[in-house]
């Protein structure tokens, strides 16, 4: 079959041995690739009890079915493994690294062991070579990327960790593209890479995936292209376009989610950034949307800062969340985090938590830093300390859940995370299902796993019966909708397609035609959604094996408070629990959130069902 090579390259860094693992079409039909395929490998071959920093704990990079295929947005790569947070870990990025990996003739990488010295992997069609990166240890991701392109091939692509990955911060990501960063940010998998003494992976290949029937693919693509009108805002201003809209409806996180409106929004908005600093629009591989905004600052305190401009999430996490309305500083802080190899979303939440702890007296001393809202210098200093695990930075380097355990129970109410992963940037007051989506996301408090708040806010999903916004805050229907959206987003992930296609209102029919054109398979809308359901339950099963249950599908008190603003917190808690109850029932999980055996068997997840049964007995 076309589009995929069915080969996964396995590298043991301890022994420096490599082998090529092969898999069959039935596996691909079942999981489509991406993080679903990675999870099936993790679940069947590796012991979930092993510490994520142990050499035996694997790090898996996996392309999706369409990664590297010239359909709109076929660019995504997933990195997966056991997260330092203690459960399923997954991060994803666009850019060019994933397609380039596919072009080597390998669909994915499974990396185990620990290199004897800091190393990088050089991967081509010939296989993998372990090379020394001793001179690069301690360097930022931008310099590392430049040096490795000099040492290998200027046309290659680099995925690197920065100091944060080396010091094993639980907020460390893996940065691709150097200063034009596309980041596999979430769940601290950069720290797992650091624990393997693996500074970077450089890929270069020229094997373009073959297509079964390019006419079908092209015709379906041509028919879809007019839909790009739905995402013109993203093309012009990137996700930064959202800042003012979110502020207007009370969805912009402000001052660690304490406030719902803020005068500073316009100063940090997409149009302001584009008018002042845009250098060029950036598109990932085969992307017609081009939501990336490369920026440059020629003068002022940050002169010389040049690269990927901050996305909406970062403008919020290092801007409004911290009451920082200095756009130049946010551009620089984003640049700093990318170079240090930090997840900007988690980092912003950790900094907000530090500032609130300090200003309220829970944190008495901060290495002399005067931590206060809206102070870019103090924020930058704290971020450097976090990445290098220095002084007070060590307290926050592993995220807010760990820090709150040190600072005391009272701080847990404003340590904003679920399953240890810091919340993404959206106040759930106007779209309350987001809190449920955060709490039940397999990797922790992530919006991308569900995007339920988008449907609640009016982005249509007609195949599931959602054609207009869901007003009000009744729990009814929101549990089901959240589960359906999580399943659908899992399909995008496995296909290696950017989820922004959902905003361009791509249909199941178009996805079906693309799949048919690429592989020859005839899949119905129901088939697609069954794969999504399977992928979601597979990752849940993996989490259950690591002790996750309803006890971890939770939200901190501050989020429960703002679900029903102006009312006692028990009202918000009731809404949350009502949504969660409906969600568990719809999913076929028991009241503790454990998938019923029949549910797993109906999805062909016999191995997962057996492992859960063995765990119980």
């Amino acid at each position, binding site marked *: 079959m076309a589009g995929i090579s069915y080969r996964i390259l396995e590298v043991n860094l301890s022994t420096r041995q490599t082998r090529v693992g092969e898999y069959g079409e039935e596996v691909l039909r079942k999981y489509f690739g991406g993080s679903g395929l990675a999870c099936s490998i993790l679940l069947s071959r590796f012991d979930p009890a092993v510490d994520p920093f142990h050499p035996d704990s694997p790090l898996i990079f996996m392309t999706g079915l369409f990664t590297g295929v010239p359909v709109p947005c076929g660019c995504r790569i997933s990195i997966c493994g056991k997260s330092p947070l203690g459960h399923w870990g997954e991060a994803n990025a666009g850019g060019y690294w994933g397609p380039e990996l596919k072009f080597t003739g390998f669909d994915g990488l499974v990396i185990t062991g620990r290199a004897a010295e800091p190393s990088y992997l050089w991967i081509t069609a010939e296989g993998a070579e372990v090379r020394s990166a001793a001179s690069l240890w301690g360097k930022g991701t931008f310099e590392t990327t430049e040096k490795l392109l000099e040492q290998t091939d200027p046309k290659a692509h680099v995925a690197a960790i920065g100091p944060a990955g080396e010091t094993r911060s639980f907020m460390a990501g893996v940065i691709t593209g150097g200063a034009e960063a596309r980041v596999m940010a979430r769940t601290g998998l950069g720290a797992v890479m650091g624990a393997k003494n693996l500074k970077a992976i450089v890929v270069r290949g020229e094997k373009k995936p073959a297509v079964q029937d390019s006419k079908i693919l092209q015709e379906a693509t041509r028919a879809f292209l007019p839909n790009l009108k*739905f995402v*013109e805002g993203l093309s012009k201003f990137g996700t930064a*376009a959202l800042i003012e*809209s979110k502020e207007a*409806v009370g969805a912009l996180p402000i001052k660690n989610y304490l406030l719902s409106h803020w005068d500073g929004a316009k100063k940090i908005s997409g149009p302001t950034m584009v008018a002042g600093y845009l250098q060029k629009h950036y598109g990932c591989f085969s992307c017609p949307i081009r939501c990336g905004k490369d920026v440059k600052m020629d003068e002022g305190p940050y002169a010389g800062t040049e690269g990927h401009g901050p996305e909406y*999430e970062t403008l919020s996490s290092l801007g409004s969340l911290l009451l920082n309305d200095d756009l130049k500083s946010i551009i620089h802080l984003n640049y700093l985090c990318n170079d240090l190899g930090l997840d900007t979303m988690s980092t912003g939440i950790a900094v907000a938590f530090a500032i609130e702890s300090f200003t309220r007296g829970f944190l008495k001393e901060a290495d002399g830093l005067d931590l206060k809202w809206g102070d870019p210098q103090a924020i930058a200093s704290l971020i450097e300390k976090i990445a290098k695990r220095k002084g007070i930075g060590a307290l926050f380097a592993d995220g807010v859940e760990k820090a709150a355990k040190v600072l005391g129970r009272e701080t847990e109410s404003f340590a904003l995370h679920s399953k240890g992963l810091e919340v993404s940037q959206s106040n759930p007051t106007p779209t309350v299902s987001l809190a449920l989506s955060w709490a039940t996301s397999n990797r922790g408090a992530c919006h991308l796993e569900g995007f339920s708040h988008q449907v609640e806010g*009016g982005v249509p999903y007609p195949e599931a019966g959602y054609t207009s916004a869901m007003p009000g805050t009744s729990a009814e229907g929101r549990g089901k909708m959240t589960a359906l959206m999580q399943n659908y987003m899992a399909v995008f992930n496995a296909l290696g397609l950017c989820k*922004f296609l959902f905003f361009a209102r791509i249909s199941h029919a178009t996805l079906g035609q693309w799949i048919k054109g690429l592989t020859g398979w005839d899949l119905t809308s129901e088939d697609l959604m069954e794969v999504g359901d399977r992928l979601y339950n597979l990752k849940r099963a993996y989490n259950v094996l690591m002790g996750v249950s309803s006890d971890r599908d939770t939200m901190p008190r501050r989020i429960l408070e703002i679900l029903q603003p102006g009312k006692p917190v028990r009202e918000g808690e009731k809404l949350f629990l009502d949504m969660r109850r409906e969600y568990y029932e719809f999913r076929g999980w028991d009241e503790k959130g454990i998938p019923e055996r029949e549910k797993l068997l109906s999805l062909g997840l016999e191995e997962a069902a057996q492992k859960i049964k063995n765990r119980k007995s």
Partner: protein
Amino acid sequence: MIIHVKTVGTLKSLQEGTKLEALEVPEEASVSQVLERLKIRDWEIGFVLVNGERATMKSILKEDDSLTLVAPLAGG
């Protein structure tokens, strides 16, 4: 009757941040009638606020209402 209209975000049909201090519309006009009048297509709108409160396309407006039209929050 007179209403006040403000747009937020990147609506395709109107300039960023358009503010119509006074727009004359028929008595008991609905939000969708106002959109039609302004030649804004419904897919350009995510949230609708009337006097700062969440409303729908079917909401009926009254004299001196403030109507805020917000582009879909697609992207984050």
